[in-house]
């Protein structure tokens, strides 16, 4: 049995020294068919602290938090809020007890106003809404905690950062004392992250408790008071955040040493592989998303496109891959003009695309891993000719790639939806890179992945570059861009507003350009 520092306050003698924890989860065990998601996990938070929950994908963080918010019921174990045992059967029970969660994917109605979203789902709302009173309250909460947002604005008019504030205000309005934030900084610029940390401090000063789920070790070290690390569904350690290093945390998370700097030789530039000239395109709502964007990508280099989400990154990737028509401008792969060519032409011209959305675009969830691995090259696989599909070749390819890319799957026949995020990402990378593409567009390739998997993905991309691949890396994680890109292009409102090599760029400079400030 490992030591469990969190269970100490439960002993009666300790109660004199330690105040009752704001929240305690004792010996939580949750089993899913074939998986022990939480194994005897204990976890507690003090009032007014930022408590970070760290762990790789599949470490059991989400399960634990879903149990805490009443989405799942534990097989065994108990939950205490302010020392009183509670049993949550739904998120509504949890919020009644003051426990609320902001999910990574916001749950807001985009056509309604901020105030309307805040009261959505409340039960004690009058039939006739007193809108002005609610708006005043929203404004008050915003001012108190440094969460400025116009209560009369419609959600679709807000930036992602503002939408996140609305989600937090929703919880505060419901009287939440314990706020669980799932990867909150993933959608923010460096400057926004700083402001967000100030807000967190204001909330803890007011006695709120924050549970922060994050993969970003720098941020965890910057903001957390204590850190709990889970690995393989088990509690590894709870540590005070004093004098900790990234390397220490990472090795606790992964269970081995992690290298943060990836060795990289200087880029061996070759011919221009991708030329995007003066391209304009609309987004899904019919609003211009790309406004005369130009970009060059050469063989042997990684170009990082940095920008706050929603500035045209997705549209750029889709234009290059033939999934979105352009209004003006041209796209060339090597010297072949592929402007507005359908996806199949792009694939055959040598474009590989690691899409932003692994499950909605990048894979067919109910099809097997083998079938997903063959999604791009089933036309050429084996000796089936024009009509037939070689299932043996498909299986052989799958076994090959599963081994080469170290994909953890029970078998090639397993449905893709049963894989963890990191493994699904490896499936997609394996499939795309196996085509030996001329140009690879990788959108947020490590989003939501743990340190181990992230390291892996970055190494794969650099290896490809060393072998002469041309890689366009779209990411909002500046650490990632600085770590692996040779050149950085900043995208703002559908245009590249600045380009520099990663040696000459500074974090501040890029951050300001991402926010639209010209240097």
């Amino acid at each position, binding site marked *: 049995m490992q030591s469990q520092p969190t269970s100490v306050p*439960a*002993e*009666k003698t300790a109660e004199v020294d330690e105040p009752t924890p704001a929240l305690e989860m*004792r*010996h939580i*065990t949750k089993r*899913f*068919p074939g998986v022990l998601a939480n194994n*005897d996990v204990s976890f507690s938070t003090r009032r007014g602290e930022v408590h970070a929950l760290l762990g790789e994908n599949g470490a059991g963080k989400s399960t634990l938090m879903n149990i805490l918010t009443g989405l799942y*019921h534990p097989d*065994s*174990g*108990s939950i*205490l809020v302010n020392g009183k*045992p509670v*049993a949550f*059967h739904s998120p509504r029970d949890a919020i009644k007890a003051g426990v609320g969660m902001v999910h990574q994917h916001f749950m807001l109605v985009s056509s309604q106003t901020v105030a309307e979203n805040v009261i959505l789902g409340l039960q004690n709302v009058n039939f006739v809404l007193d809108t002005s009173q609610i708006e005043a309250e929203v404004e008050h909460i915003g001012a108190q905690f440094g969460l400025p947002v116009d209560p009369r604005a419609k959600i679709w008019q807000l930036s992602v950062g503002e939408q996140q504030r609305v989600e937090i205000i929703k919880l505060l309005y419901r009287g939440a004392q314990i706020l669980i934030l799932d990867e909150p900084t993933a959608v923010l610029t460096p400057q926004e992250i700083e402001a967000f940390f100030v807000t967190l401090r204001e909330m803890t000063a007011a006695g709120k408790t924050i549970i922060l789920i994050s993969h970003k070790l720098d941020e965890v070290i910057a903001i957390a008071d204590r850190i709990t690390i889970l690995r393989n569904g088990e509690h590894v350690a709870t540590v005070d955040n004093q004098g900790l290093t990234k390397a220490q945390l990472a090795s606790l998370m992964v269970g081995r040493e992690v290298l943060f700097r990836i060795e990289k030789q200087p880029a061996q530039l070759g011919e221009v592989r991708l030329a995007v000239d003066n391209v304009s395109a609309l987004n899904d709502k019919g609003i211009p998303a790309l406004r005369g964007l130009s970009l060059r990508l050469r063989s042997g280099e990684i170009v990082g496109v940095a920008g706050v989400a929603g500035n045209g990154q997705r549209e750029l990737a889709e234009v290059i*891959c033939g*999934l979105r028509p352009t209004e003006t401008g041209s796209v060339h792969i090597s010297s072949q003009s592929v402007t507005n060519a*359908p*996806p*199949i032409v*792009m*694939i*055959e011209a040598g474009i590989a*695309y690691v*899409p932003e959305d692994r499950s*909605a*675009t*990048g*894979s*067919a*969830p*109910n*099809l097997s891993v083998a*079938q997903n691995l063959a*999604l*791009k090259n*089933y*036309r050429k696989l084996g000796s*089936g000719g*024009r*009509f*037939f*599909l070689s*299932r043996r070749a498909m299986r052989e390819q799958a076994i090959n790639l599963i081994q080469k890319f170290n994909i953890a799957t029970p078998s090639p026949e397993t*449905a893709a939806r*049963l894989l963890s995020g990191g493994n699904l990402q490896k499936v997609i990378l394996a499939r795309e890179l196996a085509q030996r593409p001329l140009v690879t567009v990788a959108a947020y390739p490590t989003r939501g992945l743990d340190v181990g998997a992230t390291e892996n993905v970055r190494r794969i991309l650099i290896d490809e570059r060393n072998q002469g691949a041309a890689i366009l890396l779209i990411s909002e994680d500046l650490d990632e861009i600085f770590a692996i890109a040779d050149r950085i292009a900043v995208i703002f409102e559908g245009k590249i507003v600045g380009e520099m090599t990663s040696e000459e760029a500074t974090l501040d400079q890029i951050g300001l350009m991402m926010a639209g400030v010209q240097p």
Partner: protein
Amino acid sequence: MSVSTTPSSEPQAEIKPRRRLRLERVQEQPRWLRWLAPLILVIVALLVGAGLLSVIGANPWVVYRRMAELAYGSAFGWSDTTIKATPLILAALGVSIAFRMRLWNIGAEGQLYLGAFMATGVALHVLPADSPTWLMLTGMALAGFLGGAIWGIIPGILKAKLNVNEIITTLMLNYVAILWNNFFIYGPWSERGFGLTPQFPRTAWFPRFTDYADTFPIFRGITAHLGIFVAILLAIVLWVVWQRTRWGFEVTVVGDNPRAARYAGINLTRNIILVMALSGGLAGLAGMSEVAGVVHRLQERFSPGYGFTAIIVAWLAKLNPLGIILVSYLFAGLLVGADAIQPAGIAQLLQGVILFVVVGGEMMLHYRLRFVRG
């Protein structure tokens, strides 16, 4: 492990156990369950049907036994069942193609009627009555397929180009097809103003088993026609298509995630139209086989809703072409058995109950009921 659920140090933490029933989502069902489930569900449906039968004062055991005897108890029973299974298999294969791509073609009935119409046109008005049988039947089959395909392509194009909901268009085209047929059988093609056309020449009849009674006396009186072999052959072809071909793979990908399919370079527009054409075409072939093999003319209401029953069949067979053969025989048996039972609506009632139980039970496959404490 279970001992440690309530640590002894804090007896007050013991929560009063409250047993409650909870639905939990199951990630993956075992393979055996997926295949056994339809069988169990059909049995459950028959039990529910038995309950309903006893409510209306019948002895369900007697009813079921009589139905089974009629449908499967003799060679003649099998013959009648085969006659009804043939159009069901063809139409169900048709709708299953569309369903596989998550296109909800519920217009098989109309496609079947239009197929019958086109085949009739060929038999009575295009080819001379003394054409050789092989030519006549091939011409009718092609025309029948084409008629159904046209009726499938219309909603297909509307869906692919304008994203018009195919459920509405296929449903509405059913009525158009039936009324179109009525116009011809009461008007230009009518025999003395009745709702039917003249009988086809013998060359336009599908050969029946009984036609070979001179060589094989055992076939005497077996009126089932050879369309069943066409149906079974097509089921096998379709099975191979799904399992072994590139195109089958593409349809499966589109059905699972259209966005991923587009991303993989699969042409959605072309495939939607192609799938709707094939889907309608097979239903049209069902209509052709019915007029050429059974009624030998076009007449009003020649189909007792085969196109609608086909939807249930395809669903119950989980879109598996070979499963469709089995389920079609089950439903055909219900139809045959119901012929001798009063009131005549029993067969439809049982079909409805089966679909209801199957759809409801399908959900239970993805969830399980558990007692939990708390």
